[in-house]
């Protein structure tokens, strides 16, 4: 029998690499208990982010959390980040093991 799975929210944020330190600090202040980052490049409304140099690099942040924390994070993103920064955020429903971790 496979281990029991629990439903959680997976928030993915794609944004400018220069935001990493500030955004991560903010996430953890809001109650997030873990995150994962990969380096990324891309294109969007803010033009070509080719990662040729640090200023044009993106990062991709993943956060597994429960709905209340998610809502708090989405609120902050909307209030303080969407207007000024190249940033995309999306949420998907996933099933996790060891639900108590998130």
């Amino acid at each position: 029998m496979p281990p029991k799975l629990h439903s959680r929210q997976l928030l993915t944020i794609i944004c400018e690499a220069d935001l990493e330190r500030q955004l991560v600090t903010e996430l953890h202040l809001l109650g997030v208990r873990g995150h994962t980052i990969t380096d990324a490049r891309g294109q969007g409304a803010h033009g070509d982010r080719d990662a040729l140099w640090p200023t044009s690099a993106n990062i991709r942040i993943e956060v597994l959390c429960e709905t209340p924390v998610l809502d708090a994070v989405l609120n902050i993103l909307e209030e303080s980040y969407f207007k000024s920064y190249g940033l995309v955020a999306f949420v998907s429903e996933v099933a996790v093991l060891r639900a108590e971790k998130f």
Partner: protein
Amino acid sequence: MPFEPVILFFLLGLLAGIVRSDLKIPGVLYESLSIFLLLAIGLKGGIELARYPLGSLAGQALVVLAAATLIPLVAFATLRRLGRVPRADAASIAAHYGSVSVVTFAVAASFLGRLDVAYEGYLVVFLVLLEFPALLIGVILAQQADGQTRWGPMLQEVLSGKSIVLLVGGLLIGWLAGPEGIKPLDRLFIDLFKGILAFFLLEMGLVVASRLGDLRKAGAFLIGFGIAMPLTGAALGLVVGNVLDLSVGGSVLLATLFASASYIAAPAAMRIAIPEANPALSIGAALGITFPFNLLIGIPLYHDLAVRFAREI
């Protein structure tokens, strides 16, 4: 006009970018080489510093700092009055131009080396000192703008920023260890400096090519600004160099510092401190116009002017 071969690497990168070559220098290599250059410049300065009495330097440093404060103020006023640029953008651009470009400085030093023109080795100290005050001025200038200023993270970002840490760290190590102590490291930090600068300029060419699109967003006014501002800065630098009785080489380096615009420390700091400012404008002007202008035209010109200036006196 004398001609410095490392420039050719910049042009090669620029051309490769423009023809959309698949030559992509890995971002990690960019970071590694910039760490090397900052550290090596600091070390060289530190070794030189040991030769001068620190007291007399302090006086000169105050004059240079005071004069340098003018640059972001003039830039801001020009952008607001003449260019009708929004406050946040004007403040951010002013910070970029008030701060300095380490690579432009290195190319100027290499240009002087090639012509066998001597210069005061302690000028690296000014490079370090000039790097961050303009960033603070930029934030103050932006303050009446809508967004709240994030002083805390901003100061943290600037003072413990990688360029300050490496330049100051290099200075201290060079100063503490002295020429003898550093000698076994010369093979890396001195002998390879110019080759690695050439390599880095190849990358800068690619980066500049990728930012040319930003120039369209910047518009004609900002393009003109990107040429007028370094000329203004250089003129101020030559005058200050003269007041401080610097050698011709020293004046050229000071002029270059004043003429250059930051694209390592400033963009990251401004992004956090003045989020409303559009980075395409400041980086388009600083990197798309002023950086190549200084490399290709500015440095030889400032040298020319410094020589004439010295003769007239």
